[in-house]
């Protein structure tokens, strides 16, 4: 039984090459089209922070619900949280590009735009940056605490780390659910500064778990193929596939709820957000988002036998990773640059971020035992069957 994981040279080389591509894309982007590059940076920051927060929410959910089945691979979601410090640095760098993305950050806009002037007490530069720092401080602090407890569990064992983990999981869910939905409103929703949706933050926070589970599945299946987690059985895969199925319904529900109310009420401030997306040139992506994130996972994962298939599961997970990008692209781009462009900047920057993500996650995975050997529910998890 292998307890520890060391990243292979292939992974290290892969992440290095991807980061290099990303750096090239950023350099190319800033010389040709800075506004588009800043917007892409925001998309990718949000993308990978969503994955990190979602994974930690998943980790905490397992603790507060006393779920034993996932104890076997609980170090994987914990490791995904390790992207948060990198995400924090990259997000703070966005300070220099704020006027390129956000309309409200343009100097002098409050004199010409009454609505933005009305929102100014909340939407101003110092407060915006302060909130950003506060969010990241809370998330990283809680991530470090959870990780320290996990490492203490490996060295000493006993029930104490488990009880502590459960306590801090409660704290994390409370903090992250509120702060991440606020963060999504801050960073994404304010791009269209005249528009607002009460549901927006909730949707971002809840669906983050959806995409995080997709990444968790990919990492677990990759490690399993290398020979780690030999105890991973059909029941584990079945439960992970069910997560995807259930959350596809949640996604479709929240997506439609936000759309239907605005469509029905037909209030100009609100429909201005949906007009270019629903009827304008973004229409293809608008339907693609629903198809990729809801329809395909819903129909494919409906049958448990198909869902837990070792080929179907990673395929759907990869489709969902594309889906998250499409979803964020559609939320950011029409408001920031307003042009539908797809090229080397988009792909290169995503690949670069993916390189950073792989680097952070696999380094974190090797930092702790891969198998939580002193976890009180490990035996139950290994013998999980349904």
């Amino acid at each position: 039984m292998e307890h520890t994981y060391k990243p292979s040279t292939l992974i290290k080389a892969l992440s290095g090459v991807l980061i290099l591509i990303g750096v090239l894309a950023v350099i190319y982007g800033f010389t040709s089209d800075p506004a588009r590059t800043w917007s892409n940076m925001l998309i990718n920051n949000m993308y990978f922070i969503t994955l990190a927060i979602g994974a930690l929410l998943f980790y905490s959910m397992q603790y507060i619900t006393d779920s034993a089945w996932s104890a076997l691979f609980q170090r994987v979601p914990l490791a995904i949280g390790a992207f948060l410090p990198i995400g924090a640095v990259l997000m703070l760098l966005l300070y220099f590009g704020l006027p390129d993305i956000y309309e409200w950050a343009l100097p002098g806009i409050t004199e010409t735009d009454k609505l933005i002037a009305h929102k100014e007490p909340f939407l101003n530069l110092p407060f915006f940056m302060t909130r950003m720092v506060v969010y990241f401080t809370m998330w990283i602090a809680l991530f470090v605490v959870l990780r320290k407890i996990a490492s203490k569990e490996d060295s000493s064992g006993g029930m104490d780390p488990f009880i502590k983990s459960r306590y801090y999981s409660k704290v994390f869910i409370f903090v992250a659910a509120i702060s991440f939905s606020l963060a999504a409103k801050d960073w994404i929703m304010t791009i269209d500064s005249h528009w607002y949706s009460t549901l927006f933050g909730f949707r971002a926070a809840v669906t983050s778990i959806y995409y995080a589970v997709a990444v968790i599945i990919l990492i677990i299946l990759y490690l399993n193929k290398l020979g780690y987690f030999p105890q991973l059985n059909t029941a584990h895969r079945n439960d992970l596939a069910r997560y995807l199925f259930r959350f596809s319904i949640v996604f479709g529900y929240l997506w439609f709820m936000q759309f239907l109310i605005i469509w029905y009420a037909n209030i100009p401030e609100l429909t201005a957000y949906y007009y270019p997306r629903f009827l304008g040139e973004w229409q293809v992506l608008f339907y693609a988002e629903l198809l990729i994130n809801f329809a395909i996972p819903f129909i494919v994962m409906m049958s448990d036998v198909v869902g837990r298939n070792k080929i179907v599961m990673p395929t759907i997970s990869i489709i969902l990773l594309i889906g998250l990008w499409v979803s964020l692209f559609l939320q950011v781009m029409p408001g920031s640059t307003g042009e539908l462009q797809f090229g080397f900047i988009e792909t290169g920057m995503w690949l670069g971020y993916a390189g950073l993500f792989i680097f952070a996650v696999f380094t974190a995975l090797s930092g702790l035992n891969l198998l939580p050997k002193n976890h009180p529910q490990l035996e139950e998890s290994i013998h999980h069957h349904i």
Partner: protein
Amino acid sequence: MSNKHIIGVFDDDQKLLTAVKNLTQHKANIKDVYGPSTSHELIKAFTRESLLPFLAVLVAIGTIIGAFGFLYYTSVIDYPLRYGGKPLFSFPPMVVILFFLTILVVGGVSVIAFLGRTQLFPGKQPVMIDPRASDDRFYLVMDQNFNPEEIKLWIIEAGALEIVEKEIDTQTGWGF
């Protein structure tokens, strides 16, 4: 064919499981299994897949098509009333109705189908193969379409306490 059934009585679900495995291996038709507790392994060994999920999917598709047709008929053909500046046929408001109708109809049909399949209905007298089936004994019921002597042998081999042969009226349930 007589209604005589062979009934194996067990005191342990693992023994019952080996008997079921033995019998399914030789393709003998097991009528039913009774016991005070459920065992997932036993259900798997039975290899009887439930058809309820497929029924649910079929009913769901039927409901969506039917309800869509009904909504289209009412809002466009029978009573075309324009409200809120929306087109007569507009899909978004239909989604909610389709969603809830589908859940309601599929839920109801599943319950009725389940009750029909298991021959249960409100007010039915409970039929028990033996009072001990709700206490600490497990029962395996076989009809005699296979070689009865062989069946008895396999049941005994698996560790049955006793073997009973009884007349059972299969039409009205287990008449004990």
